[in-house]
C-alpha cells in the first residue's frame, strides 16, 4: 500500500479522497490554491501543499507545479479526482515518470478513451453497441455524406471532448453545414483540438452508466446509475438502481462492458456511459476516473469505491478485493443524489459570493458531501458544485424523500443556489414515475418559466 497520497484537486472530491486515505491508514497531502487555504480538505489532510495563484491554469491544472508539489511533499501516489487533470494522458505519464503512482488507468488507455472516435471503434469491435456515427470529419463533402448515411437529426461532437461540451445538433443539411465551422472552432477553443465527428441523435434517451472496476486482468461491473436529469449536458440528479430497466437487459450490457474493458487490460475504476433509447443501449463514452455520482453506487452496494480505486492502483487483485461470491448481486437499497450548485435556477447563471452561512444537515439516511467551510468564497475560477446530498433507503420513494429533506435542510446563504430547482424535480410526477430523459429538465424549464419571486414549478 502507498505511504502518502497527493490529492491534485479541491472541493467536494478532495475531501472525499482525504477520507478514503484516512480510513486506509494512508497519509494524504491536500493541494490548495490561494483561494482554498481555508477549505476543509486542507484542514483534514495529513499535510498540505500550496499551489500559488487563483486560476486553474496556474494551480490545479498546471502540470509542472502539481508534479513539483507532489515530489517535494514526498508522495508515492497521486489521486487526480475528477475534472482538472484527471483524464489527461500526458499528465498521467509524467506523474509515473516522476516515480509517483498515478491512481487511474494507464496513460495509453486514458488516451484511447479520450479520443471519441477511437473509443467508439474499440467498443464496437469488442461487441458493445454504438449509435450510428462517423469517423473524424475532414471537410464539408465528407460531412454531408456521413450525415445522409446516418440519417437526420445528427449531432456534431468534438472528438477530444467529453462531458457534453461543444456539441451541436443539426436537423438538415443547411443546419449541418452552418454548424460545422463553429463546432470546429468551439472544439479548438475548449479542447485544443478542432477534430469533430457525427453521431445519430437518439430520441429522448435516458443516460445510464455502468460502474466498472478492473485490475488489468479481470474487470467487474458493480452496478448501474441513472443520470438523466441534466441541464446543459451536466448532471443534476443521479440514482441507483436505474428505475424500470429489466435486470436481464442490464446484466447483458454489463457483461459487454466487462468484455470491452478486459480487452483493453483496464486496471482501475472507470465508468461506461450509455444512452438508452427505444429499449436499446448505445455507447456514449468511457470516463477513466472517479465520478461525481459514485456515492449512489456506494450506498446501494456497500462498497467504498475510492478505497477500491486506491487499492487497485497499489496492485491489489480484484478477486481478493471483491471475491466473486461476495460481489453485489442486485440490491434492495435505493440511493438518490442531488447536486447543489451555486447558480440561479431561473436564469441558469453561476452565482459568486462569500458563503456567509453554510451548514450541512445531519439526518438519518442522508449522506452529505460538503466541500466548503462557512466564510469561504465561491469564485468564478472553479466549478459551481457546493455539495452533494445522497438519500438512501429500502424503497426508491424513501430515498427520494430523504434527499428532498436533506436539500431543504442544508442552510446556505451568500450565493444563489439551485435548491429550489432540486426540490421541484424531486417532487415532480415524471421524476417520481422514473419517466425522465436527458432533455426532460430543459424542456420543463422552457415550458414553465416562473416569474421572479414566485416558487419554481416544473
Amino acid at each position, binding site marked *: 500500500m502507498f505511504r502518502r497520497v497527493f490529492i491534485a484537486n479541491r472541493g467536494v472530491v478532495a475531501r472525499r479522497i482525504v477520507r478514503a486515505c484516512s480510513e486506509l491508514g494512508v497519509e494524504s497531502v491536500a493541494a490548495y490554491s490561494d483561494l482554498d487555504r481555508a477549505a476543509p480538505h486542507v484542514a483534514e489532510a495529513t499535510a498540505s501543499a500550496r499551489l500559488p495563484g487563483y486560476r486553474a491554469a496556474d494551480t490545479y491544472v498546471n502540470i509542472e507545479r502539481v508534479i513539483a508539489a507532489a515530489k517535494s511533499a514526498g508522495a508515492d501516489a497521486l489521486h487526480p479526482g475528477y475534472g482538472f487533470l484527471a483524464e489527461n494522458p500526458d499528465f498521467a505519464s509524467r506523474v509515473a515518470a516522476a516515480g509517483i503512482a498515478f491512481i487511474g488507468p494507464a496513460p495509453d488507455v486514458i488516451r484511447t478513451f479520450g479520443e471519441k472516435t477511437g473509443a467508439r471503434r474499440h467498443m464496437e469491435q469488442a461487441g458493445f453497441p454504438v449509435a450510428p456515427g462517423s469517423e473524424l470529419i475532414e471537410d464539408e463533402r465528407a460531412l454531408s455524406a456521413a450525415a445522409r448515411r446516418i440519417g437526420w437529426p445528427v449531432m456534431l461532437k468534438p472528438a477530444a471532448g467529453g462531458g457534453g461540451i461543444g456539441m451541436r445538433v443539426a436537423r438538415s443539411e443547411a443546419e449541418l453545414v452552418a454548424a460545422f465551422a463553429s463546432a470546429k472552432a468551439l472544439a479548438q477553443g475548449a479542447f485544443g483540438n478542432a477534430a469533430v465527428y457525427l453521431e445519430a441523435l437518439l430520441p429522448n434517451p435516458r443516460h445510464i452508466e455502468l460502474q466498472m472496476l478492473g485490475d488489468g486482468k479481470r474487470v467487474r461491473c458493480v452496478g448501474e446509475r441513472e443520470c438523466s436529469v441534466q441541464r*446543459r449536458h451536466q448532471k443534476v440528479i443521479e440514482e441507483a438502481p436505474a428505475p424500470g430497466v429489466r435486470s436481464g437487459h442490464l446484466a447483458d450490457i454489463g457483461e459487454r462492458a466487462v468484455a470491452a474493458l478486459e480487452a483493453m487490460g483496464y486496471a482501475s475504476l472507470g465508468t461506461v456511459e450509455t444512452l438508452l433509447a427505444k429499449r436499446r443501449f448505445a455507447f456514449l463514452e468511457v470516463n477513466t476516473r472517479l465520478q461525481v455520482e459514485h456515492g449512489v453506487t456506494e450506498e446501494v452496494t456497500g462498497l467504498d469505491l475510492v478505497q477500491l480505486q486506491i487499492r487497485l492502483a497499489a496492485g491489489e487483485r480484484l478477486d481478493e478485493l471483491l471475491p466473486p461470491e461476495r460481489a453485489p448481486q442486485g440490491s434492495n437499497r435505493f440511493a438518490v443524489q442531488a447536486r447543489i450548485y*451555486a447558480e440561479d435556477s431561473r436564469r441558469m447563471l453561476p452565482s*459568486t459570493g462569500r458563503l456567509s452561512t453554510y451548514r450541512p444537515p445531519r439526518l438519518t439516511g442522508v449522506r452529505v458531501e460538503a466541500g466548503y467551510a462557512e466564510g469561504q468564497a*465561491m469564485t*468564478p475560477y472553479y*466549478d459551481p458544485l457546493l455539495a452533494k446530498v445522497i438519500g438512501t433507503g429500502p424503497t426508491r420513494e424513501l430515498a427520494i424523500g430523504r434527499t428532498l429533506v436533506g436539500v431543504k435542510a442544508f442552510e446556505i446563504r451568500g450565493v444563489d443556489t439551485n435548491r429550489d430547482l432540486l426540490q421541484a424535480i424531486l417532487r415532480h410526477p415524471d421524476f417520481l414515475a422514473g419517466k425522465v430523459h436527458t432533455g426532460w429538465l430543459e424542456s420543463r424549464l422552457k415550458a414553465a418559466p416562473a416569474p421572479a419571486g414566485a416558487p419554481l414549478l416544473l
Partner: protein
Amino acid sequence: MARVQIESEVTGNVWKVEVAAGDAVQEGDVLIILESMKMEIPVEAPEAGKVAELLVAPEDSVEEDQVVAVIETA
C-alpha cells in the same frame, strides 16, 4: 440615436470578444463570451445597432452589473 449600456450578468472573466467597435449588430447577436465557474455565458445585443465601445478585452475580469460594451441604436 440612443446609447445602450450592456452589463455583465455575472462575475467572471472575458473569454472572447466576438465583435469590433463600429460593427453593425442585430438583436441577439453575441458580443462577448464570458466564462465563470467553467460555464460560458454569452453577452448579447439587446437590440440592433452599432458597437460604439468595447470596454473589456480577453482575460479581463468583470463584476456583476459592470458595463462591458455600449451600442448605439438607430
